[in-house]
């Protein structure tokens, strides 16, 4: 892990497939946050997906094909690769090199990958962002792969607490899984939503208006559950809140 503080000017954005197709606001917020720190953001346009859906479902050949493409695209670029997702960053850092053991580019790419909040706090030394959005009452869900596989340890909370106008409430069981689990959510939907119900109970008990996370995949599941039951609580990515868009 290098210290990018002095040398960073150019960063690569690996935006993730879900942000690309479903949540472009998260991508735009990520760009704004990085640019506000003086980064020059590049978006390698041939990027697609990290391959995690196929990998976690056990379809390794399919995952390998996607991962090989992504590695080839990213390896042609320079500088840190910033990912607004702990789960996809974990895939690129830990699983892709295992899937492509004979491809040295996979290891090179893995070494450059940074989850967004860890990049801001650990690499750029950001603590306060000077957010200028409407006041918002939030609670933060620590998604599993960022927490346990990347070892994220409160960077997002640091940023939220240092941003202006954010009232952050504790989330009981914040380190408990939300029940999404990738394709698990449609393989075993009843189990998935039974776990989600516990998460939603805790979110509601927090008193927050917005549940914030670092992974749009979990937020899609949590937000979908909240919306189905008619809850006024919204689910937002941490980048959106920090950029003042929520």
């Amino acid at each position, binding site marked *: 892990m290098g210290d990018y503080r002095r040398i960073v000017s150019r960063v690569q954005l690996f935006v993730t*497939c879900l942000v690309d197709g479903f949540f*472009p606001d998260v991508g735009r917020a990520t760009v704004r946050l990085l640019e506000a720190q003086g980064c020059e953001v590049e978006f390698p346009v041939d990027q*697609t*997906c990290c*391959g995690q859906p196929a990998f*976690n479902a*056990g379809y390794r050949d399919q995952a390998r094909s996607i991962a*090989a493409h992504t590695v080839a695209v990213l390896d042609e670029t320079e500088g840190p690769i910033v990912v607004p997702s702990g789960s996809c960053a974990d895939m690129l850092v830990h699983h892709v090199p295992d899937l492509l053991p004979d491809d040295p580019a996979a290891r090179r790419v893995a070494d450059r990958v940074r989850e967004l909040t860890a990049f801001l706090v650990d690499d750029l030394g950001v603590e306060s962002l000077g957010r200028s959005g409407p006041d918002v009452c939030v609670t933060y869900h620590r998604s599993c792969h960022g927490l346990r596989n990347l070892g994220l340890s409160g960077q997002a909370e640091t940023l939220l607490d240092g941003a202006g106008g954010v009232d952050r409430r504790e989330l009981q069981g914040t380190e408990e899984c939300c029940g999404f689990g990738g394709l698990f959510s449609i393989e075993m939907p009843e189990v998935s939503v*039974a776990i989600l119900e516990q998460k939603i109970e805790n979110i509601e008990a927090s008193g927050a208006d917005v549940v914030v996370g670092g992974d749009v995949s979990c937020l899609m599941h949590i937000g979908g559950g909240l919306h*189905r039951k008619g809850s006024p609580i919204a689910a937002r990515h941490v980048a959106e809140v920090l950029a003042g868009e929520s």
Partner: protein
Amino acid sequence: MTPVTFRERANLDIGTHKAAANDVSARRLHKKRAVAAAEFSAFESTRDRAREIRLHTLAHLDRYLGEFADSVERLGGNVFFAADAAEANEYVTRVAGEEGVSLAVKSKSMVTEEIELNHALEAAGVEVVESDLGEFIVQLAGDRPSHIIAPVLHKTRQDIGSLFRDELGVDYTDEASELNAIARRHLRPIFLSADMGISGVNFGVASTGSIATVTNEGNGRLTTTAPRVHVAVMGMERLVPNPADLMVMFDVLARSATGQRLSVYTNIVTGPRRPGDPDGPERLDVVIIDNGRSRVLSSSASEILACIRCGACLNVCPVYRVVGGHAYGGVYPGPVGSVLTPAMAGAEGWADLPYASTLCGACQEVCPIRIEIPRMLAELRAEMGKESGFGWLRTGLAAYSRVASHPVLWRAFLSAGAVFGKAAGRDGWIERLPFHAGNWTDYRDLPAPASESFRSWWRKNRAT
């Protein structure tokens, strides 16, 4: 119709009284573990050491099994290696016949559940009584254990009070101490009249031939000392090299299991009664069982054999908490069972178990041996996916893989999604989708795809 998949079994229990009792107790055990871990400053380094010992033992299992067997025989015990459940049951039944046993008392043992020893003995005319309180309740209720260390985690005290009233003819009570006393009164004469005690083995010590069992009820100590014949049944992986290693296991086992520094009864039996000993069994037989473990040892899931059966991975697992242990179908529930059962028994009937996980990683985080359960679950999915019942993923993922490997197709895919998003979404949410996608929308709403993808926005606004 008998449920045949994890999903079907889970759906029978989700939201029931049984699942709620399970969730409360699993969380209580998890919390106790957290307290015990926090107060023991050397816990993390002791876990590292425990992992080293267990992996070392597995790497040299043949040698340690030989040493253990020699040690037991030197002490005057008999050792029998059983390739499978049938051989093990036949051996124990034969010992019961030789010794004229009509009543056997058992302390808690997962491996005898695995081989269904009770059925075999009962078929041979031997009455078998479970003496672990939880197992006793399971036996009375004609139920199955739902947790590795707490067989009736899915029952409340009230459930047990009703069961005792109905089955033992006592007055209803839901006081834990009174329930304990009822079981004790019922079991005490059985201990004293049983001809054979059957125990599991938490750890066998290779260098000394000792058998360590840990309990909180004292029933294990009575089972292994009061009857004149003691049969100890163990999975072939349950060894440590020497007594110092055993102490390391004790340092992590009870803390991980129940949050205790040490279990109330930590029992180390070294051989049958020697001349001059005041008590102990006249005959000791140790039955060491393979039953699929050799297959596991040479597989990608070999590390699961390092498990010391504390149950911490169950208590923390979000899936286990909401479905309970019975949904897993086999003897070993929870994350460890989702690896162990298919790895031991093969894909047939069990290939969906590795999918019964969100891969959240909480199991590995609490495992005293730091066993890489999520990695093995993902590998078993890769090996057994075809037989898992989730074959319908293949078509979709094959198509997705093609699209996501070619940027031109990917752009077209996102453009189509944007058109679909504009058309299908009401307020930006999709409430109903056909086919397997309905597995999402039957239970929660789906955000509609964006009407303009990120890359499309980037191309218009940022691309140079």
